[in-house]
């Protein structure tokens, strides 16, 4: 599904991602780990179109994503969440989802300006669908609250479900468990599994919580200083001497 | 005629350049753009008339007084308005708008205090004209050219080579890191705006004898000075002067050979072209946008 070949990006003198190649198939939960500064978020930024690679290519479901803008990549079927919460804080929870559903709706300019009947119907259906998304993650009672007023854990969930509402085939989750307590992490664990099993969306998760990653993921990639140093099942990765060295050495 | 136009262009360009230096100074030390610079210049010019012409104080004393007043005015604006807004964390556009509002207040305030009629700024020098290349030029204009290059050199030296200048640059680039190094960010920022106020004042005093003094003096020249800063490279001192010279020459040559009606159109078109195609100016390096 996702093919990454020799992906490299250099900023000035620093090579943040160095000749990384990966292959992801549908139907598995993937993890991306590595010590701090390994280039994981930079990698996400490359795949989601925020950065343009210096060299290498990214291919998704057969078509190349190189040089595409973030909104085009979203349309192509990849959605993401961010390390720092990037919600539309002054809009309501429901509206956040509706924006996430932007590409799922068809009303163009004329229909919007003149409130044509097909636009009205589409809006109503969208609102219903948005409520369903909120119910999926259990925050529907907050639908009309300002997104910024939600407790931290719920904001994280909202960001994930907003990304899901774009109906992607691949979702990039950047440290979704950051700042969560163990109860919230349990919920997140089940939730990510649901994303795979019920929605058939493939997650690629960046995380520092090893317990969560090893428990959830079918396959893991390890980055260190911009290079991929290992990949494999959780057991294989845990036993890999290079991975152990990277984590211990990087303390 | 070409010679006269050329020298006039240089003089005008140096004025734009001094104003641009003020803008660049604020940007280099604050990361902000202040639309009020031009109008601070107007205040400087009016103060010049008040001290030098009305109160008959010696020129040197007047300059010092004006410098001090404008210094505190610049600092005051930074502390009273800019700092508050930054602390509030408003969108950067609001800071820009605040300086525009201040510029309006100053403009209108000047008009109220000194009247709407254009005032005459008496000559500073005993010799009213200097001969150059066989033509006569107002002494003040030549002085302006010398002054602008001098200020540019001083600022360049100060920013790059002195401790205080480095502190200012550090505060602008990363206030938190600067604080960690023991730099008092608030004071350095205030000082920079004060200095910018001074350069504006100087520009005003230099311009007074050349153009007369009126309340919209600053806004007209101010916008052009801003344009010069952008063209030369925002935050770059050499760029500010060069940008000013380019603009000044462009305007005077257009006035002379085509028509004075199209001066402004040419200047603003060049500005827009630079903004669209090369917003980092001539002398800056391209910055990677996030």
């Amino acid at each position, binding site marked *: 599904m996702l093919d990454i070949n020799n992906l490299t990006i250099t900023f000035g003198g620093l090579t943040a991602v160095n000749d990384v190649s990966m292959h992801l198939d549908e139907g598995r939960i993937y993890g991306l780990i590595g010590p701090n500064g390994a280039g994981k978020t930079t990698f996400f930024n490359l795949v*989601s*179109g*925020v950065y343009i690679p210096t060299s290498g290519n990214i291919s998704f479901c057969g078509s190349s994503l190189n040089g595409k803008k*973030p*909104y085009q990549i979203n*349309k192509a079927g990849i*959605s*993401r969440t*961010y390390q720092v919460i*990037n*919600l*539309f*804080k002054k*809009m309501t929870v429901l*509206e956040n989802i*509706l*924006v*996430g559903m*932007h590409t799922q*709706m068809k*009303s163009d*300019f004329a229909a*919007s*300006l003149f*409130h044509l009947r097909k*636009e009205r119907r589409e*809006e109503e259906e*969208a609102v219903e669908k948005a409520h369903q998304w909120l119910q999926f993650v259990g925050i529907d009672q907050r639908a*009309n609250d300002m997104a910024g007023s939600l407790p931290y854990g719920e904001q994280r969930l909202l960001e994930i479900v907003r*990304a899901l509402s*774009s109906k992607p085939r691949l979702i990039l989750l950047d440290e979704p468990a950051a700042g969560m307590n163990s109860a919230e992490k349990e919920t997140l664990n089940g939730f990510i599994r649901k994303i795979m099993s019920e929605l058939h969306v493939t997650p690629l998760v960046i995380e520092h919580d090893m317990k969560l990653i090893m428990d959830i993921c079918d396959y893991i990639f390890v980055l260190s200083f911009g290079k991929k140093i290992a990949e494999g099942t959780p057991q294989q990765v845990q036993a890999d001497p290079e991975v152990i060295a990277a984590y211990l050495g990087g303390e | 005629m070409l010679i006269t136009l050329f020298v006039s262009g240089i003089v005008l360009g140096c004025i734009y350049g001094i104003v641009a230096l003020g803008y660049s100074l604020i940007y280099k030390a604050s990361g902000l*753009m202040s639309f009020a610079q031009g109008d601070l210049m107007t205040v400087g010019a009016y103060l010049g008339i008040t001290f030098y012409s009305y109160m008959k104080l010696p020129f040197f004393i007047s300059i010092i007084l004006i410098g001090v007043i404008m210094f505190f005015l610049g600092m005051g604006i930074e502390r009273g308005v800019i700092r508050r*807004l930054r602390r509030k964390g408003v969108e*950067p*556009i*609001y800071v*820009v*708008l*605040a300086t*525009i*509002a201040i510029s*309006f*207040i100053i*403009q*209108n305030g000047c*008009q*109220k205090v000194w009247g709407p009629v254009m005032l005459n700024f008496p000559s500073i020098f005993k010799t009213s004209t200097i001969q150059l290349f066989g033509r006569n030029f107002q002494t003040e204009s030549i002085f302006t050219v010398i002054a602008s290059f001098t200020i540019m050199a001083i600022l360049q030296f100060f920013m790059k080579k002195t401790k205080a200048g480095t502190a200012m640059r550090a505060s602008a680039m990363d206030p938190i890191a600067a604080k960690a190094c023991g730099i008092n960010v608030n004071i350095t920022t205030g000082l920079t705006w004060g200095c910018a106020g001074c350069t504006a004042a100087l520009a005003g005093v230099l311009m007074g004898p050349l153009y007369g003094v009126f309340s919209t003096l600053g806004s007209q020249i101010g916008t052009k000075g*801003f*344009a010069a800063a*952008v063209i030369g490279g925002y935050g770059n001192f050499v760029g500010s002067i060069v940008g000013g010279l380019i603009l000044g020459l462009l305007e005077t040559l257009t006035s002379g050979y085509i028509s004075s*009606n*199209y001066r*402004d*159109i040419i200047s*603003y*078109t060049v*500005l827009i072209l630079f*903004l*669209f195609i090369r*917003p980092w100016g001539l002398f800056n390096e391209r910055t990677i946008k996030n």
Partner: protein
Amino acid sequence: MSAFIGNRNRLGIMIFIIVGLVLPLVFSAMPYAVLVCCYILIYLIAVSGFDVLVGFSGQISMGHAAYYCIGAYGSAMLHKYTGIPVFFTMLIAAVTATLVGTLIAWPTTKLVAHFMSLATIAFGNIVFQLVNTSPGRITGDANGLHTTYLSVFGYELNTYTRFYYFALIMVLLFMLIKYNLLHSRVGRAMLAIRENDHAANGMGVNVRFYKVAAFAVSAFFAAYAGAMFAHLVRYISPDSFKQTVSVMFLTMLLFGGTASMSGPIIGVTIVSLLNEALRPASSYKMLVYGVLLLFVILIFPGGILGVMRSMKEKIIQKRK
């Protein structure tokens, strides 16, 4: 920012329409007051459109009077030199301004806030200069241009009261369009762009397109308002389209409150009344604008509407 139409809003609309219909009757003995009301309606259209640019998509234009100017001069000149009826020249001028706006917007939307201000100021100045010293004096230069009344289906709007009712209908039309935009997918995309354009991009919103679209819409509103202005006062000169007008639009919008229907109404009304009150001391106008603007930015960036909303919040909190 969300304002789903509820019963309270329906009441507000009713009040607005009733007050609007009744106003000229109240002032029937003072044609000058009706003229002021006409100004208010015209500015309301311009500022409502301006809100789409500033309030919805979070951009800035410090030279928006340029589109107001293109609308006015465009309609007047088109009618003068081709004889096309005013009703149509107004639309053509507005469409032309929209095209110009779109063209200028395309590179402008890339710029950050302060550069965008500079670029739009420059554009505003260029338009002003072109109108002030036009090639072949086609705009009449500083002497200005005289033009005629607008006629709707043969009915000539040659009194302030007649024009007023036409303007009222146009205001309702434009407000309806703005309202539809605000509550549609397009409007939401713009609001999201203002909130967080990176996240919006990541959610599939073509940020560039919607930013340009916001410019285009605001240009159309401003230009049509300008055309209305031209055929109301029937004499336009470059003086009416200086930088001060751009600042006035901005003050009206920020003072009233952005991204809303009633914000512009509040801002335009109050600032217009202020304009009238300052007529004897018109030299203080700029000072007042500056102070108002600064006040709004420093103390209540949400404008009057923002203050009202936070007061409502406090009351709701207290009740809980």
